[in-house]
């Protein structure tokens, strides 16, 4: 068990064939770089690109035995391979910026805590300072003061709880610019506290006012004002953007997957945040291996043409060259759609065949495992197993079919052997059917479903023409760029809906039969 390292930490390569042209080498380089930037340490190159049928059978048989082993087959043509040192070095260089980010992330929280402390201390100090500084001259106040003390205490408690609920939350994300409303509210609170301190200092401390009840009322009025500021905060920060005003359409640039979301009046950066949170649960996981087919086709279109300038260099040589290329390519395009059609038909057939084999294998494997009944537990234990061991026991019978299927649908880098076995143990524990186990492999699920490395704080860049703290408008567009792809977002205002009423009397539902009856007389 120990020498079968987890699939994710192996670097396995296809046995690269010698007769691949330079074009394919270029292709494999781009593939490596795209999966490297995925922040996922699985760098097993995807299976063979759409090849001729006769080539496909031989490499896959050779790869089946390499599952989970530490050997790497590096041939002479794969000179863009990634060694273990490179991987280790790559991991380290992302540590630095992450450290800095952690400090900056907690700055708003720290400021909020300081402000909270000030808010707590100010009314209390208003009450306590006169007692400390001129206790003999203060008028004793009776029950009215005590009532005020009580209300002050409770209001302060409520304020602190409410403030804790609203403000003392770990930040969801670090946004590029400051959150305008929060900053304004903090400023307002600070202003309020300063003005109250000013009044206190001038009117009460300097003149050493003796009317203690007045001072207590002064403190209570401060707490009231703070409670109202908190109400303002709730309305501005939480409630204002609940009512949907805009419908945003989010399109992923690599494969065009589109979703629509309804949002309220938010600034662009906050809208981007909401969209990202939805992205991880709605969009299917980004699979770079599925995109290389289109790129190779595009490369084939243009790579075959070379333009020679016979009449000597002119100023518009570049445009003339590109026009010539387009014209030649237009004439030449006749056969590539044919290729595409047959390739896709063949691929579909292969996927369906492998899927059928997989389903049968998994169903058969699940029949070997049965939950131990209560009565049987009292008998001497034969070979009882916990879920993990049961999963390991039945996994080999379906491993081959599953691996072949994943390779055909180019998902094998998303699932490591450990994760598959963990999922199998999970399904066995919860009495799931084979179909339930297979569902996560047959359909590409949302990014949340896969290992944590896929979606732990990623670096996203917000690209926008308008300032990111400006509010969303009809027709505003921005892009959320990640390292592999980008999400293009356009917003449309939800139109003003006119709803009119039509009153229907409950007894007005009367019916007649429209017959054409024929009576014989």
């Amino acid at each position, binding site marked *: 068990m120990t020498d079968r390292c987890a699939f994710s930490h192996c670097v396995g390569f296809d046995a690269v064939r010698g007769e691949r042209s330079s074009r394919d080498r270029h292709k494999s380089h781009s593939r490596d770089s795209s999966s490297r930037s995925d922040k996922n340490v699985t760098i097993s190159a995807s299976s063979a690109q759409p090849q001729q049928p006769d080539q496909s059978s031989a490499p896959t048989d050779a790869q089946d035995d390499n599952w989970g082993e530490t050997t790497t087959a590096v041939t002479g043509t794969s000179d863009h391979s990634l060694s273990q040192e490179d991987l280790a070095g790559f991991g380290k260089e992302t540590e630095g910026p992450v450290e800095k980010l952690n400090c900056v992330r907690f700055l708003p929280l720290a400021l909020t805590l300081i402000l909270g402390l000030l808010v707590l201390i100010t009314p209390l100090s208003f009450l306590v300072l006169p007692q400390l500084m001129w206790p003999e001259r203060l008028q004793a106040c009776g029950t009215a003061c005590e009532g005020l003390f009580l209300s002050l205490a409770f209001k302060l408690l409520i304020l602190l709880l409410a403030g804790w609920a609203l403000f003392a939350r770990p930040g969801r994300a670090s946004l590029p610019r400051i959150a305008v409303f929060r900053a304004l509210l903090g400023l307002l609170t600070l202003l309020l506290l300063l003005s109250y301190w000013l009044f206190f200092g001038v009117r009460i401390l300097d003149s050493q006012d003796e009317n203690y009840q007045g001072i207590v009322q002064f403190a209570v009025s401060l707490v009231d004002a703070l409670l109202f500021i908190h109400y303002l905060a709730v309305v501005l920060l939480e409630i204002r953007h609940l009512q949907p005003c805009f419908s945003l359409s989010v399109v992923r640039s690599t494969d065009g997957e589109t979703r629509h979301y309804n949002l309220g009046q938010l600034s662009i950066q906050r809208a981007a945040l909401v969209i990202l949170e939805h992205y991880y649960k709605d969009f299917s996981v980004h699979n770079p291996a599925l995109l290389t087919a289109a790129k190779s086709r595009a490369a084939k279109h243009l790579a075959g043409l070379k333009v020679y300038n016979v009449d000597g260099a002119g100023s518009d040589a570049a445009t003339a060259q590109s026009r010539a290329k387009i014209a030649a390519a237009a004439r030449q395009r006749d056969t590539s759609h044919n290729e595409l059609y047959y390739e896709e038909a063949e691929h579909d057939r292969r996927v369906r065949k492998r899927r059928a084999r997989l389903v049968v294998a998994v169903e058969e494997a699940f029949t070997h495992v049965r939950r131990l009944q209560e009565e049987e537990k009292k008998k001497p234990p034969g070979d009882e197993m916990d879920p993990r061991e049961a999963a390991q026991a039945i996994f080999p019978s379906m491993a081959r079919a599953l691996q072949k299927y994943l390779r055909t649908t180019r998902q094998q880098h998303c699932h490591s052997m450990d994760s598959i076995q963990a999922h199998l143990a999970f399904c066995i524990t919860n009495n799931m059917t084979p179909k339930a186990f297979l569902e996560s492999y047959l359909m590409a699920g949302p990014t949340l479903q896969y290992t944590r490395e896929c979606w732990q704080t990623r670096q996203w860049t917000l690209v926008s023409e308008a300032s990111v703290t400006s509010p969303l408008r009809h027709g505003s567009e921005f892009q959320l760029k990640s390292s592999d792809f980008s999400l293009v977002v356009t917003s449309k205002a939800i139109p003003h809906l006119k709803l009119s009423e039509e009153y229907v009397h409950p007894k007005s539902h009367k019916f*007649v039969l*429209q*017959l*054409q*009856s*024929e*009576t*014989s*007389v």
Partner: protein
Amino acid sequence: MSFIPGQPVTAVVQRIEIHKLRDGDNLILGFSIGGGIDQDSSQNPFSEDKTDKGIYVTRISKGGPAEVAGLKMGDKIMQVNGWDMTMVTHDQARKKLTRKNEDVVRLLVTRKSLENVVRQSMMQH
């Protein structure tokens, strides 16, 4: 057979006298009617004007009293024994035709061919 709302209906009619046949306890006339003011007149295959809600003869049983008396399929019944049939419900028409104490019904029926005959004979003169 044109119908102008508010004006009396004018039509060329034929008088048909049908003697009811006694069949056990029932008196049968040997034809079927359709139409009536409570029916859907647009489905009437015999009427020229689809808003005409009159009573039409939809079927004649072979050899029955109606066929013997000369009733034809598609005739519009205007009167039965003096009772008007142009503005009655289907059920009222049935009742007027199937009174148990009457052995004979005298119908006034109209059809398109009657008008043509009259027009032709008028043109000859």
